[in-house]
């Protein structure tokens, strides 16, 4: 009887926590991270905000539906102009507010006659060039997003950099990870990495070969974060990590995630080597020991995650 009561209490607590969590996810919440960097959580992907004496730098702009609330939250942190928006991927829950946030900002321009941006005075939108490819379309065809949301400044190399608010900001491109246009932003003085959807605390990674993603790229990105991050004394504190979704983290959470992806990938690879079909691999539930942590919170289901790894390793499309 006691055991039955305990189980009931646990179930009720879990249901209550899930309901509370879902209600809270549409709310925007501003959290200090460290140094000059803040995280705005809720309603889409996480937004990273760097403030200082010169300007505001924003990483990712959530969905279009909450753009005005996002701008209001940024304005509570700083009255300085929003000068740069860094985009970690072309996903709508990370770029939906681009147009509104950019138009609420101001870019420092050359003389109009020389500035290649023409008359555009909005905050620059910075991304890997593949994000521009995904958000725009060739002339004469309909683009998936409005032109005002497109990146205005792109890079095609493996890294780029800004220096704003007395802080170096490294932009690190990870090829073929979540997509083919992923950027992570490393705020060097504040010691904060904003990872985009390469890392999440609330779900399995989503990578789609049709958008240029791969499990090898996800692991490359996670290992790159671990190479950049330096933990504090006795593995406590140190470099702070802002995931694409979920809570503020540090090196340990990224190592946990890297281990999980590596182990599930290795299990799927072993099953493929044993000649198993996709259905047989899914039936073996190779992620079952992690499902309680990463399933059911909005990311890929375990079945989808395992299928994505299977297809990626087999080189087949859905």
């Amino acid at each position, binding site marked *: 009887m006691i*055991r039955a009561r*305990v*189980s009931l209490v*646990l179930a009720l*607590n*879990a249901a209550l926590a899930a309901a509370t*969590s879902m209600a*809270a996810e549409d709310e925007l*919440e501003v*959290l200090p991270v460290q140094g000059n960097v803040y*995280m705005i*959580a*809720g309603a889409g992907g996480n937004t990273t905000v760097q403030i200082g004496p010169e300007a505001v730098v924003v990483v990712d702009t959530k969905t279009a539906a909450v753009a005005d609330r996002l701008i209001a939250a940024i304005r509570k942190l700083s009255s300085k102009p929003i000068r740069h928006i860094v985009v970690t991927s072309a996903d709508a829950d990370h770029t939906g507010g681009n147009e509104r946030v950019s138009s609420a900002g101001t870019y420092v321009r050359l003389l109009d006659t020389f500035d290649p941006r023409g008359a555009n005075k909005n905050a620059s939108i910075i991304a890997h060039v593949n994000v521009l490819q995904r958000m725009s379309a060739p002339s004469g065809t309909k683009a998936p997003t409005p032109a005002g949301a497109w990146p205005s400044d792109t890079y095609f190399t493996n890294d780029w950099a800004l220096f704003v608010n007395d802080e170096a900001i490294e932009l690190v491109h990870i090829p073929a990870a979540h997509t083919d246009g992923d950027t992570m932003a490393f705020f060097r003085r504040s010691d904060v990495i904003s990872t985009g959807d390469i890392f999440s605390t609330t779900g399995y990674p989503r990578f789609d070969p049709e958008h240029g993603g791969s499990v090898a790229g996800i*692991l*490359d990105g*996670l*290992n790159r974060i*671990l190479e950049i991050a330096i*933990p504090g*004394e*006795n*593995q*406590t504190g140190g470099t*702070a990590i802002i995931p694409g979704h*979920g*809570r*503020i*983290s*540090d*090196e*340990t*959470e990224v*190592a*946990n995630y*890297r*281990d999980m992806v*590596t*182990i599930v990938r*290795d*299990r799927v690879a*072993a099953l493929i080597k044993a000649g198993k079909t996709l259905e047989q691999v899914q039936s073996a539930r*190779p992620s*079952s*020991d*992690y*499902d*309680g*942590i990463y399933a059911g919170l909005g990311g890929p289901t375990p079945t989808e995650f395992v299928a994505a790894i299977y297809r990626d390793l087999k080189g087949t499309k859905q």
Partner: protein
Amino acid sequence: MWSQRFHEELPERGAGPEIGDYAGLPVNDAARLRADSWDAAKWTIPERQCEPHPADYAPRGPANLRIGNTVDPISQDVVSWDITVMWSLTHRAIYMDGRPHPSQYAQHSWQGFSTGEWDGDMLKVTTTHLKEAWVRRNGLPRSDRATIVEYWIRNEDYLTLVTIVIDPVYLTEPFVRTSDWVLDPGVQLSPFSCIPAVEIERPRGAVPHHLPGTNTFLTEYATRHGLPQSAARGGAATMYPDYLPELRRDIEALR
């Protein structure tokens, strides 16, 4: 200052519990698969070398304690009870001022976020925001969704801690342990500094683990102690006296 007494804690000390020993623990299949896949070589990875024990396991480690408090400078009310544990010099603050627990987006830590209230002579502590850690040092996990409820009980010079781990991911029932200390004003906490380093050269991103069905160490514990393998696999049923007749029957069958 409090000096630790090893009683039921002893199996966790030194080399720690044997691989594959899940007996008497309320673990589920997900926990078993995590532990079956666990490779002790994990601790050689730089990201793992300096991990401290979490709040719920620290009492099982080398755990002499320093307990103090922080008081409000005006009212002199206790703001927090502050506990430092010998191993890794982990520090916990147990807030007594009624502050709420942080949001779901706040960072988790090894010691979590703790609030306390007096329940008679016992200090009841509730801890959330824990990093993923371990129930035992043989790979049995404790998730970052877990909540810990503790009761700190002092009887003259003896201090007893009851730790209740509630983990919806890896435990089917609350897991209860107790730990003991003796008042010892002469105890000192030694410096403890850990800096990770590459100890074994491996390919980038290598993660030591066993694939399902390949861990040959898992049966050693039950075999060495003359136990049925089913007992070593644990589960809530193996915690209760009702299990003893079944265990005796299975042991007899082995002979």
